[in-house]
């Protein structure tokens, strides 16, 4: 397309797909993959071992038109392919508050992807499923938090794929050899030095999404490296860093020194070169990030809801939630939702936690997420969350006022029926 750019070298089977040997859908998918390869300046296409599709979330008829065009053209996925959250909770359809027409279209979209051979996983956290890609494995994952997790925590390699290209990659089994698939593009470029943060803060889960927010906002299109955290940061904390960084910035990979596989040391993360930039993260930056996420006024107002599980809650996070509830019930005037996948739901059911959560009045949402679809019935009061990603998007998507807080603050507030701050954690307001 661009003058002076070398053409992409295509294999015989790539050429065959382009020529329509496998039907019109595979041809359209390959055309799009090749266009994107040209755009990225890729020399060739490479094989992938799995795909994760974000296009199954209904954003409007364009997505449905595309999926049905592929399906009519005989599209079938060539690699194991998982599906991201959709617009409907198929296990609790009564929780959906949108119009019936949107629900029908959303359902048609989900059906189209299943008909193309995708697994009905309906989760934004495919890394919580049993089979996940390993170090150096090339995959085509969409959904920004899943991309960061695959690249950073698993050491798998995926570019920042989105709707449309995700299913094209799954149908062709090929992606451009570009971006984060290439070793040199994975070099850490901007170092976030956390050594100045107090131990007390490092021990708190709530720090991690806030670090992610700072990283996302400050990285631009550079690959960030987080340095100064104790080694072996838990996966759920890394998940929170990545999800927040991907929501507030263009981050597709974040190295965490001592915790992620390509960053045993800072020098490894930097591929033994000098960083382009150094950002010293101060406690004040963390507090500013927290305040940025809270859109409710200083008097907070009436608490209408509490939302956790964005990205989808893991088994370990449910364990924390059950422990923090400690047998208490959610206040009757507060809607408390936890979003997760049906896979994790089955596991917490086996552990007996599901019954405990339901008895406590926590409503489980599966297959979807409370910020992409209409679940909340009361959007007039403030809503609390421990998810930076939920706090980032919900005011725009749902028109609600948000208070960002720790999981403990969320639980105490849900039980008491009003916004409760933890002064020991933040210092008095």
């Amino acid at each position, binding site marked *: *397309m*661009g*003058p002076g750019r070398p053409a992409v070298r295509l294999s015989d089977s790539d050429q065959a797909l382009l020529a329509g040997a496998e039907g019109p859908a595979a041809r*359209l998918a390959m055309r*799009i993959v090749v*266009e*994107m390869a040209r*755009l*990225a300046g890729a020399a060739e296409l490479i094989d992938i071992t799995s795909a994760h599709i*974000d*296009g199954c*979330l209904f*954003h*409007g*008829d*364009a*997505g449905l*038109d*595309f999926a049905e*065009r592929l399906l009519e053209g005989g599209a079938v996925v060539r690699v194991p392919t998982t599906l991201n959250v959709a617009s409907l909770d198929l296990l609790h359809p009564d929780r959906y508050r949108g119009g019936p027409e949107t629900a029908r279209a959303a359902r048609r979209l989900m059906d189209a992807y299943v008909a193309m051979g995708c697994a009905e996983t309906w989760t934004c956290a495919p890394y919580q499923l049993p089979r996940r890609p390993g170090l150096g494995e090339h995959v085509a994952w*969409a*959904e*920004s938090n899943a*991309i960061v997790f695959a690249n950073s925590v698993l050491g798998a390699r995926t*570019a*920042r*794929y*989105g*709707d*449309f*290209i995700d299913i094209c990659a799954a149908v062709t089994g090929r992606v451009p050899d570009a971006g984060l698939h290439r070793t040199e593009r994975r070099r850490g470029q901007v170092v976030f030095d956390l050594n100045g943060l107090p131990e007390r803060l490092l021990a708190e889960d709530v720090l991690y999404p806030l670090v992610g927010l700072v990283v996302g906002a400050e990285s631009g*299109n550079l690959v960030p490296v987080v340095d100064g955290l104790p080694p072996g940061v838990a996966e759920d904390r890394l998940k929170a860093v990545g999800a927040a960084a*991907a*929501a*507030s*910035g*263009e981050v597709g990979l974040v190295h965490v020194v001592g915790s992620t596989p390509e960053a045993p040391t800072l020098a490894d993360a930097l591929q033994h070169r000098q960083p382009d930039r150094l950002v010293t993260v101060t406690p004040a930056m963390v507090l500013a990030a927290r305040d*940025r996420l809270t*859109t409710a*006024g*200083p*008097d*907070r*107002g*009436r608490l209408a809801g509490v939302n956790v599980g964005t990205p989808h809650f893991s088994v370990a996070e449910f364990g924390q939630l059950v422990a923090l509830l400690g047998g208490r019930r959610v206040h009757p005037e507060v809607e408390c939702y936890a979003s997760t996948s049906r896979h994790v739901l089955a596991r917490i059911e086996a552990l007996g936690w599901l019954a405990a959560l339901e008895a406590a009045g926590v409503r489980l949402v599966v297959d979807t997420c409370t910020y992409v679809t209409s679940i909340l019935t009361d959007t*007039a009061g403030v809503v609390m969350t421990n998810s930076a990603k939920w706090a*980032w*998007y919900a*005011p*725009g*998507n749902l028109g609600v*006022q948000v208070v960002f807080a720790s999981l403990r603050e969320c639980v105490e507030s849900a039980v008491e029926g009003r916004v409760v701050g933890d002064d020991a954690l933040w210092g008095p307001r």
Partner: protein
Amino acid sequence: MTRSGDRVELEARVLLAGTAAGTALVLDEPLSLWGGMDPHSGRVCDHHHPQLGVTVTGRVLVMPSSRGSSSSSSVLAEAVRLGTAPLAILLAEPDEILVLGALVAEYLYGRVCPILVVPEVAGGTIATGDQVTVSGDRVTLARSRNLDGTEEGSMTARSTADTDDTAALRLGDFSALTFDCYGTLIDWEAGILAALRPWTAAHRVEVDDEELLAAFGRAESRRQAAQPTAPYPEILAGVLGDLATEHGATASREEAAAFAGSVGDWPAFPDSAEALAYLKRHYRLVIVSNVDRASFRHSNAKLGVTFDAVVTADDAGAYKPAPNHFQLALAQLADMGVAGHQVLHVAQSLYHDHVPAKRLGLKTMWINRRADRAKGSGATPAAAPVTPDGEVPTLAALAELHRQEHAG
């Protein structure tokens, strides 16, 4: 980059080829279309974006880059399908997510939204309002004349009140002023005291003016947060009940009704009408007020000027410091072709106005009507730390500042 007269020709890298011609809309910060642009209205709906409420439809969208979710492809394709997409998109750096959305839309619907990389986007060469033509790898700009005139060497006006604080603010950069009404244009403290004094006298409530105003401020903000959709007279009636409880007194139904109906009697500050008449010649004027429509009509009569839009608590379904008023005002201004960065919010209350307006990325001017008071914040609660972009003691001083800048 080549210049000839007021035309500038820029070389571009074509990401998705096509032709387009239209008016530039420059976004100061990257925008994720998903969660950031509503494909049904074509408006920016990202609450963290400084240009919340501006419409991209039919404009040549110029922004440094896209950001955030990979679902932005879908939103762009949907916007193309619905006819709300920009005419073309100019970026400082390549963005595969946007190109993909436009490419798929082209395959599905045969409609093209060209996307090009223009390095000058990062340098601020293109301004909102410029006429942009996209053809092949050429992007041509035609400057609007007044922009050329102010491009270089214009003086930076300084506030008469506090030169350091307002050094960076140029009133000429704005095309609309949004106003708080009560406390800023209407001397509500005088009005509140005049309405409450008969009650304190009748019930022998002994409290000085500052204390009474502070108690009013506490009760009012509490009620407004708890009953965001209650009409303002109802809030006032409830506030009188709260004041009575606080001071161990009572308030009859008639006294509550009289206080509830007193807003129309609250006087305007002496400088408001004249300053507004002056500012009306240079700006669109919008009211964003914690009041009901009926009460505001009485106040408006005292202010004289016709406002271009009036956003009340009736319209917003909430009371400031909730962001609803500002979002509505920005949406209405966007329909008049005014973007968020062209809006200056003018207000006395840090709590009700400056905190939420700054949170939405608006520039703000503090009419510090209480600058001569030793302490306290009068009838408004104390606010979280916030730094307005400028400060003047009166509205007349703001008009004077504009006059000086205009002359300079």
